[in-house]
């Protein structure tokens, strides 16, 4: 497979084969993010598609000022959060347990039971707490960035994180 920067340049020029290769390279990372942010395998499926469709539209605006993977990651976060803001239909909390095979099929996730339990516990969190927890503890964003991305106050972000951690600890202790 050609080097990533070459793929990006070719995809920017409209080469769909290169874009497909970009998808193959980044689908796992994007899907993991969507799955954790939405807490729902079907939503993650849709959002992952949305991210790559949006990427196709926005690719020309990528100027190489940051790594492509970081840029795509930020784009994916925005797509997922914007979708939730516009539809507001994330109230149903279908957990990953609906399709446990999602995790068990992946070699990277067939870890000890704790990881799968943790994934399910994260998916079970209330929406706001889950988003902040995923962005802060898993993806490494700061509260300021999260506040901006999610559209909440920094203090709310901190409170949601505290709440998420407490709920997770309680769930995993059962």
């Amino acid at each position, binding site marked *: 497979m050609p080097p990533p920067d070459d793929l990006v340049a070719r995809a920017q020029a409209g080469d769909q084969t290169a874009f497909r290769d970009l998808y193959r390279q980044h689908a796992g990372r994007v899907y*993991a993010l969507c799955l954790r942010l939405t807490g729902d395998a079907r939503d993650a499926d849709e959002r992952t598609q949305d991210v790559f*469709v949006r990427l196709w539209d926005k690719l020309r605006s990528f100027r190489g000022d*940051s790594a492509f993977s970081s840029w795509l990651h930020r784009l994916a976060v925005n797509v997922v959060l914007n979708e939730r803001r516009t539809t507001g239909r994330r109230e149903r909390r279908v957990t990953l347990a609906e399709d446990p095979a999602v995790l068990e099929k992946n070699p990277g*996730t067939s870890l000890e039971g704790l990881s799968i339990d*943790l994934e399910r516990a994260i998916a079970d969190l209330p929406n706001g707490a889950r988003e902040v927890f995923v962005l802060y503890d898993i993806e490494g964003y700061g509260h300021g960035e999260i506040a901006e991305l999610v559209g909440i106050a920094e203090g709310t972000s901190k409170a949601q994180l505290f709440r998420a951690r407490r709920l997770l600890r309680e769930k995993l202790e059962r």
Partner: protein
Amino acid sequence: MNEQELHEAVSRLPKSIEPPRDLWPDISARIKVRPWRRWYWVPLAAAAVFVLVMIGRSIKPTAWDVTALAGRPLIGTHRLAASGRLRVGDWLQTDDSSRALVAVGRIGQVEVQPDTRVQLVVARADEHRLALAHGTIAAKVDAVPRLFFVETPAGTAIDLGCAYTLATDSLGKGVLHVTAGEVEFQTGLRSARVPLGALIQIRPTTGPGIPYVDDAPAPFVRALMTFDYEPRGTRARAIRTVLALARPQDALSLWHLLQRVDPSLRGLVYDRLATLVPPPPGVTRLGAIALHLPDLDEYWTTIQRIHFRMMVLRGVRDVDPRTGKAVH
């Protein structure tokens, strides 16, 4: 389960999870058949014509607004009373008691400090360019990267979306201090990326020195300056000093040093850098030492992200300078 155990469990979660089915056929269909591309070509074409007209208009040399903040600065040979226009080719000059504020098109502003001489070189929507002959300016720009440039006798400051102060004498000796975002300073083939909270010394002919954070220890800064500007014979000792004194916060300096030392010393610099801030997955020692651009860029993104978090959270929260994670 306590907080620490939860944290460890989270750190073991996989970064990547393959979708349970191949999503490409659906994605491919959606990007091939986009209804809006068929139905909305008329307004899009109209929008394109409008944009072309606007670009056409913007390509013509225009002028920037200038406001006197103190005293009476000169535009060309005319004294500025309260406000005026700076046209392409015009020089704006302040004396020791005058200051002026220049609107950089619609994307920002430049405060021209006393005893400064600047010229408007290009005023287009896609390029805003000033020449700073001598003196000090404080620039604040809110735009996509690489729209605003300031030429100095020693090189060019390229805005990457930021705020900064740039000072130079007429020979090109100066300093660039970035207070928001990031600036690239370029002289010929040598360039430096300077993020917020960092600065560089600039010298004629040699151009930008290695950037360092504004709270870097003085001996560390002195060693960098020796490396950058003193005769080659003294550089080996300076490199040893830099490596010995470097903290994780100084990773941005070592990232630049890696690209400036002799090839035989790159391994030494890389190893120290990797100890201070571990490279992100995918970056190899071999690639970084060979100055392979994707490796260097990927590493820089990590260093920059950590640095940004530390700057933003300074005084608010303790951040591990090796990872950028908040210390719990």
